[in-house]
């Protein structure tokens, strides 16, 4: 398993191939379309993160000290963002998740498009992932 920093670097390099925001948008949509669907039994209110314009369902499980995330959204773009976050954070240990800076969001030019508006639940999603990490850490 690569470290968070290594995966972030990979993503940044991938996005360097794109010339403009339109291409990045289309790539994120593609990632969203490929994200495996979350089983309906996890699409419950307890797992729901409500953004202003989209909903996210986030489920997580612990295996051998690492946390595995799976998630879904009614927005394909948000699903694409989820796919990126899952790639970076899923399968990591709680401490690594808590310490992650997730600088790639800035570096790939995503933050200026989504984080400044209330439209997108990206910030709440990261917060929730880290809260799970805290919860698992305190259980240990």
């Amino acid at each position, binding site marked *: 398993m690569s470290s968070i920093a290594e995966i972030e670097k990979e993503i940044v390099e991938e996005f360097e191939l794109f010339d403009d*925001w339109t291409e990045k948008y289309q790539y994120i949509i593609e990632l969203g379309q490929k994200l495996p669907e979350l089983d309906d039994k996890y699409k419950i209110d307890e797992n729901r993160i409500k953004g202003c*314009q989209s909903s996210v369902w986030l489920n997580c499980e612990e295996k051998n000290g690492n946390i595995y995330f799976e998630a879904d959204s009614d927005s*394909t*773009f948000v699903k694409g963002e989820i796919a990126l976050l899952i790639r970076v954070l899923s399968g990591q240990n709680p401490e690594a998740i808590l310490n992650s800076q997730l600088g790639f969001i800035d570096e790939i030019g995503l933050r200026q498009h989504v984080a400044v508006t209330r*439209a997108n639940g990206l910030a709440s999603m990261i917060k929730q992932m880290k809260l799970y990490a805290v919860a698992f850490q305190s259980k240990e």
Partner: protein
Amino acid sequence: MILTEQLKSKTVFNVEEVRKDFPILTQKVYGHPLVYLDNAATSQKPQVVIDALTKYYSEYNANIHRGVHFLSQKASAAYDEVRIKVQKLINAASEREIIFTRGTTESINLVASSFGRKYIKFGDEVIISAMEHHSNIVPWQLMCEERGALLKVIPMNDSGELLIDEYRKLLSDKVKLVAVVHTSNSLGTINPVKEIIDLAHKKNIPVLLDVAQSMAHEAINVQELDCDFLAFSGHKMFGPTGVGCLYGKLNLLESMPPYQGGGDMIHSVSFEKTTYNEVPYKFEAGTPNVADVIALGAAVDYLQSLDRNAAIEHEMMLLEYATQQLTDINEVKLIGTAKNKTSVVSFIIDGVNALDAGMYLDTLGIAVRTGHHCTEPVMKRLNITGTLRASFLFYNTKEEVDALVEGVKGAIKLLRVK
């Protein structure tokens, strides 16, 4: 005679000339010409408004109403002059009936707070409608909760039209105020406000109109409508952000307690007893937003300089054209199909999330609004979570509608989940 009529009907609104007044419209977004169709959120600003702001700050910035010096007198005169401009714009009986606020939201909060404290008692009722913006819901909820009053809602039909017969039934003796939106921001419906006002007045109930969405489109005449309060924002009618107006009938305003306390709203202050300044100053506590009020004046002048009939005709042409073009797309469903509508088209696309589609249009340089448009109860009533909304002003073109329609088709191709 016939020839004159023909010539008249051929007079085309010169949109290319008008666009030159708005410097922002010439820019490119991600390499595409900007197509700005989010006018219901805020209008763009003509150069004269931008110039008025710059001129104020570079030539006569000063605090007003107290300075004896040259700059203060010049700024005070310019500020006071705008009150008269707004009075004329809405045909108020006196300039004292115009109060400058931060916008529609503050205007409504002012009435909810001051009128509420004076006139609303336990068990009283306030009527709003099913298509209010949150800013004409929440201030009344806060006030009603505080005073033990009840909020009643005029329902609407599936097209987005208010049910006037139901409204009649709500007008009981307990009702102390009716507060309704003139033009719906999320559906585009223009409500029959004259009828709503007349019905309320038969029972001596005052009426507040939220005309935030109307001012840029049509001429509002408060004496003809006979509304008791009127609230609007500057930024939706070509003025700057952070400034708006409340109109109120003088006798009502005089009878109401102040909204906020501070400078300018007082007559004299002592620790034992403070007396208040007269209307409108009683409701304008603190150093006012001088710069933006002055720039609002420039916006009013700009609005008055337009051929407003030609402008609205052009907007209606855009509305009709966009409605037709979007209806022709199988996956598109229009939301808000009232007979009397302003130039707003709200729609959903089957199998495409509104946020995704809005972001896709953005990559093409097309600015629309997505979501619930601060009217969550409207969305709930129509059983949807949000819409895409394109809202037009007279500076928009038929070609921009074409760009939107092509964009929607592209979004369907890329995003549709079968």
